[in-house]
């Protein structure tokens, strides 16, 4: 006790220097110990070795316009290639004279995703917006109305195809995933067994085998003469795949619901359907929104796999553009370009999911 009393004057000393001044900041954040100083020096060395050549390649030595590939091999990046192939990379084999349609479709999708991120809109209005948006996008892509030339799905490509595959997979996979999750938690052993079997089977195999199944084998399983469109087959594969992963996400939410909620619902005399729809799902689904966004990011990246079954999504169209014999050897430039596109979508969505997670947890951090 006495010691503490004697220590009191120390507390009155001026506070330690805050890290407002540059030197103080440096000392605290970069050179706090010998080990940290070594790390800092190593990191600076790494940056010094990597950044200047990158900048030189990407900006200083880069070529921004060139008549053909031969004139573009001067050491730096050939952004002229991107300029030449931009249309094909983004919209692929879609008829060039109808270019405004895929552009509009991409705009619609971006607007819909943006709308889905505005929380006050969540609810009926959003459903209406999405319904209208999807219908419009589908009509624009497929055509068939007066004034809109029909375009077969084999020509759908580039960014619109990527967006369609990812968004529809989530939209249709979600209800299926909810059913599977409910089935997995069911008290009926046969239902539970089949749902568990499906979920584990799909999650246990790589997506490309599911895609191979859908695109190469599914037709063998259909009655003779019945054919399903190739894009639709890949879409079905994505829906089935997404459903299994979404089921596990939803199951996480279902498991987090206190048993008391279910008992209370039973006590009120609600039937299974009423209980599930009115008590269980609203709580469970609200809880899993952030992981749902993460699953969507995963699906968005996974759509790139359709190139293996010869569909021309964003990556597929890019690889296709790279085969032009007049423009050989610009894979790195093209990859960097579409990496930037994928990255912006995924980064934005992952930031959004982190934001949601923080907001959702706010209530629990009292």
């Amino acid at each position, binding site marked *: 006790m006495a010691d503490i009393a004697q220590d009191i004057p120390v507390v009155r000393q001026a506070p330690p220097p805050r890290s407002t001044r540059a030197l103080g900041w440096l000392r605290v954040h970069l050179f706090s110990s010998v080990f940290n100083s070594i790390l800092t020096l190593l990191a600076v060395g790494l940056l010094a070795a990597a950044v200047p050549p990158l900048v030189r390649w990407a900006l200083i030595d880069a070529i921004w316009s060139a008549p053909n590939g031969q004139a573009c091999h001067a050491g730096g990046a050939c952004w002229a290639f991107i300029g030449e192939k931009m249309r094909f990379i983004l919209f692929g084999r879609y008829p060039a004279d109808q270019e405004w349609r895929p552009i509009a479709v991409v705009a619609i999708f971006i607007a819909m995703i943006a709308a889905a991120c505005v929380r006050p809109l969540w609810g009926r209005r959003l459903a209406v917006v999405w319904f209208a948006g999807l219908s419009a996008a589908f009509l624009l892509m497929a055509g068939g109305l007066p004034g809109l030339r029909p375009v077969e799905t084999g020509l759908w490509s580039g960014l619109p195809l990527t967006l369609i595959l990812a968004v529809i997979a989530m939209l249709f996979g979600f209800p299926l995933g909810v059913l599977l999750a409910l089935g997995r938690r069911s008290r009926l052993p046969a239902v539970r067994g089949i749902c568990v079997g499906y979920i584990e089977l799909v999650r246990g195999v790589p997506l490309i085998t599911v895609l191979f199944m859908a695109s190469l084998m599914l037709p063998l399983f259909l009655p003779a*003469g019945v*054919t399903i469109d190739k894009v639709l087959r890949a879409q079905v594969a994505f829906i089935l795949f997404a459903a299994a992963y979404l089921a596990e996400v939803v199951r996480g939410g279902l498991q987090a619901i206190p048993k008391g909620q279910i008992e209370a619902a039973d006590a009120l005399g609600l039937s299974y359907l009423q209980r599930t729809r009115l008590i269980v799902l609203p709580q469970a689904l609200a809880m899993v929104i952030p992981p749902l966004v993460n699953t969507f990011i995963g699906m968005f990246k996974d759509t790139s796999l359709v190139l293996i*079954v*010869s569909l021309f999504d964003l990556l597929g169209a890019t690889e296709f553009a790279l085969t032009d014999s007049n423009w*050989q050897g610009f894979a790195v430039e093209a990859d960097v370009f579409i990496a930037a596109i994928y990255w912006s979508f995924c980064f934005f969505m992952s930031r959004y999911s982190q934001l949601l997670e923080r907001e959702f947890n706010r209530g629990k951090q009292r």
Partner: protein
Amino acid sequence: MIFQTRLWAAFAAVVATLCGLAAGQPAKAGPTLDKIKQAGMFSCGVPTGIPGFAQPDSQGVYSGFDVDICKALSAAIFGDPGKVKYVPLTAQQRFTALQSGEVDILSNNTTWTLTRDTDLGLNFGPVVFYDGQGFMVPNKLNVKSAKELNGATICVQPGTTTELNLADYFRANKMEYKPVVIEKIDEVYAAFFSGRCDVMTGDATGLAAQRIGRASNPDDYVVLPERISKEPLAPVVRHGDDQWHDIVDWIVFALIQGEESGITQANVDEMKKTEDPAIKRMLGVTPGMGKALGLEENWAYNAIKMVGNYGEIFERTLGMGSPMKFERGINGLWTKGGLMYAIPIR
């Protein structure tokens, strides 16, 4: 509550609409011809990119020898060469795509072999191109014969007879090699021209075509003289539909017979007035042939009028009228020392 019900109803509506729109019309069960006539088009599997045979332009529109075969089929069946949906397929995907009904015919530089004809459940049309497997090497390696390739790294497309012949050849000559297999033919060639492999192997014509079409300096590369295999390339259809098989057979024969009889795109209308009974039968002036095939009587007329005879197709896509500048060689008519021989149309 009411809102939720409506939401689900709306969702169900979307599902139903999209399914209905997208599932397309399930074609009625039956032979291929009925199906494609009902659909108003057929789908044709072509290679993803071989200069001269099937090469997309910058809009992704395909042209070349393989494509023209399908155009001729379309012209004969529909009276319009444009009723074809071209499906680019890699060597690995093509047979499954045909078996499963995704495409109705492969015009895909496919080699006719016994196991493909039997185990794979395929049927081959007439040979449209006689080729042989060869090797291409950069000049700077200074290789003069395939026998000097021991230890080489070799680029090859998987799922082809090429891959098997390559293994056979090296086994027979007690040599070692390291295969680099990449699925898309254009990527195999890109890898070769960027120096990933010492040697590129494939159908000799394809090698020569890629050398001209893709190498930054064709003179840096040479195709070695050896031909290590026979590669008769033919269109392929599914096993079990004889009518469709017949149609493919006879349209190809008509293209060859057209060249033999001197019927060209330019003079086919003149030829209709000829007195030659064989030509009158073929062009449908004397009816019967079309009906026997289940096509319009002017099937052969349409094919030649709209696409040209075999010789014209060859010249335009692979021969002197193309950047490839290939000789006819064994792909000439039998009357000129080649192997192209049409079966009598009567």
